[in-house]
């Protein structure tokens, strides 16, 4: 059950190209499962920005000196995230969460690859812990445009068997894309499941590789959201259901995590003609 909480900023520190934001979160951490996100309102009643902003939950602590807390990794993008990245200790911010469907976790102790693009790595560390506690082997691939935009390398090293780094400009690790190094890793680690979070083209490419290797792919997508709680229908994408029918599905409540092969990646941003209800426009 999602909870609305008036949070206080505990800290907001720079980490590479991002801000690591720690907030009081009340009961939210108790409800949290890896892959879920929270939304933050921008400013108070006089703000001209009325929509909330969504962020993956990076860490969630049940209890501590401040009660429950969560950590977010925030990239300054437009006006809303600029405001968030400038929050100071003790500032107040309204949060709602945990939201969305968490990652599916295999019953068995299988070998998993976790792939994060930029701040997309954020939700993967609590996932890695959950997988490890099931006895899964966990490997990481962290990719970004440049080394500044890589997130969580040290923690990946702590939790992962292998940690591969890629950057597009070659400033760290392999120069290129996460998908350059994925096939080799799958072969070496005998991976059974891939989890990924990052830009849509990356998720799509990973899913293709997973399909080629006949292994599972779970992706966490990022669609523009107005409400984040399933009431507005802005965040939809075409997803094939268990019955084989494509529907325009809300990524905030039926996602953000989807089985990769269920998302019609090529047709995101369109209504595929065979979508349920597409004939009645």
């Amino acid at each position, binding site marked *: 059950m999602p909870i609305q909480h008036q949070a206080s900023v505990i800290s907001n520190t720079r980490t590479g190209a991002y801000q690591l934001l720690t907030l009081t979160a009340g009961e939210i951490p108790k409800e949290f499962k890896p892959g879920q996100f929270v939304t933050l309102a921008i400013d108070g009643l006089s703000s001209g920005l009325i929509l909330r902003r969504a962020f993956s939950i990076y860490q969630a602590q049940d209890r501590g000196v401040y009660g429950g807390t969560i950590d977010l990794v925030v990239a300054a993008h437009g006006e809303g995230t600029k405001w968030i990245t400038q929050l100071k200790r003790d500032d107040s911010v*309204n949060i709602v969460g945990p939201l969305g469907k968490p990652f599916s976790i295999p019953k068995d102790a299988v070998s998993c690859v976790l792939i994060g693009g930029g701040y997309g790595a954020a939700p993967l560390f609590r996932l890695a812990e959950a997988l490890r506690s099931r006895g899964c082997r966990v490997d990481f691939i962290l990719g970004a445009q440049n080394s500044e935009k890589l997130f969580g390398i040290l923690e990946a090293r702590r939790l992962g068997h292998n940690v591969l780094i890629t950057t597009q400009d070659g400033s760290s690790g392999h120069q290129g894309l996460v998908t350059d190094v994925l096939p080799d890793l799958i072969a070496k680690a005998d991976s059974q499941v891939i989890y990924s979070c990052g830009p849509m083209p990356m998720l799509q490419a990973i899913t293709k590789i997973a399909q080629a290797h006949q292994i599972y792919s779970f992706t966490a997508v990022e669609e523009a959201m107005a409400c984040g709680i399933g009431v*507005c*229908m802005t965040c*939809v994408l075409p997803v094939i259901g268990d019955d084989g029918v494509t529907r325009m599905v809300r990524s905030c409540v039926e996602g953000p995590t989807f089985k990769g092969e269920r998302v019609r990646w090529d047709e*995101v941003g369109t209504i595929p003609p065979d*979508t349920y209800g597409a004939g009645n426009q």
Partner: protein
Amino acid sequence: MVMKTKSGLIDMSCNFFDAKLPSPVFTASGCAASGKELSQFMDLTTIGGIVTKSVMLEARAGRATPRMSETPSGMLNGIGLQGPGIDAFLETDLTWLNEKKIATVVSIAGNTVEEFSKLAFKLKNRSDILAIEVNISCPNVENRNKVFACNPVTAQEAIKAVKKHISDIPLLAKLSPDVTDIVEIADASIKAGANGLSLINTLLGMVIDTKTFKPVLSGGTGGLSGPAIRPVAVRVIHQVRAAFEDIFILGSGGLRTGSDGLEFIAAGANALSLGTIIFNDPTSPVRIHNEMAEHLTALNKTSLAQVRNMAHD
């Protein structure tokens, strides 16, 4: 129905045709789906009720994304009425709402007069609906000429098509502010049998992406909502109330605080429906209800009804 605030007691109840509700606050169509998601945040039986997302005859996939763009103190949406179609809606959504005893206004939208007639037929004689809202003002149709509420003749035809089948359930006509003379459209709707009016739907707007220089929304234009449009909503409600002393008005458009709600009531609204603010603050229906109560008792009022129409002399 009398509630206690810091400053005193206040009767916040709302006469909704024959029903007496504990609050004038509803959720607006398209901004609370069919209630299930919001009910995680609050008990929807403590507010007035919900207006469900406009449902069409058939299932509908809606428009391609992007479906929204944030705007100064507002947003533009072009959802395109994605939904399950009336049959699935009645079976699943309305059944759930009835089980939970949530007062429900069912919003319907048709592409043609005939579709409105068929939709109404499906709702005939139902005793589990508080009212029917006839959405004749959705801006997200392919052709501006298809917005029934932009013309008194088409407005009248659509409402008549619904009224034909509906006798016991109050009918609300949801109107567009994008007209030269709102009173003329209101008049046509009332003459066609509307028992009340929902004022206002969104304003037609456009946002252009300044990287690609193309419209952001897949449909080009969309509906502008949120606090930005509030002064237009207040003006429309005031204008229509001045013309029709007794018509029931469900006010919407940019409500954010209890004070905003009282503006609407003073302008002439009988009840309120909250749209975009729900995206900002999912518990806003309860908050706004409480803020109105606090505001009024601080001014020594004892009932909400005391301020209704006060902005008219």
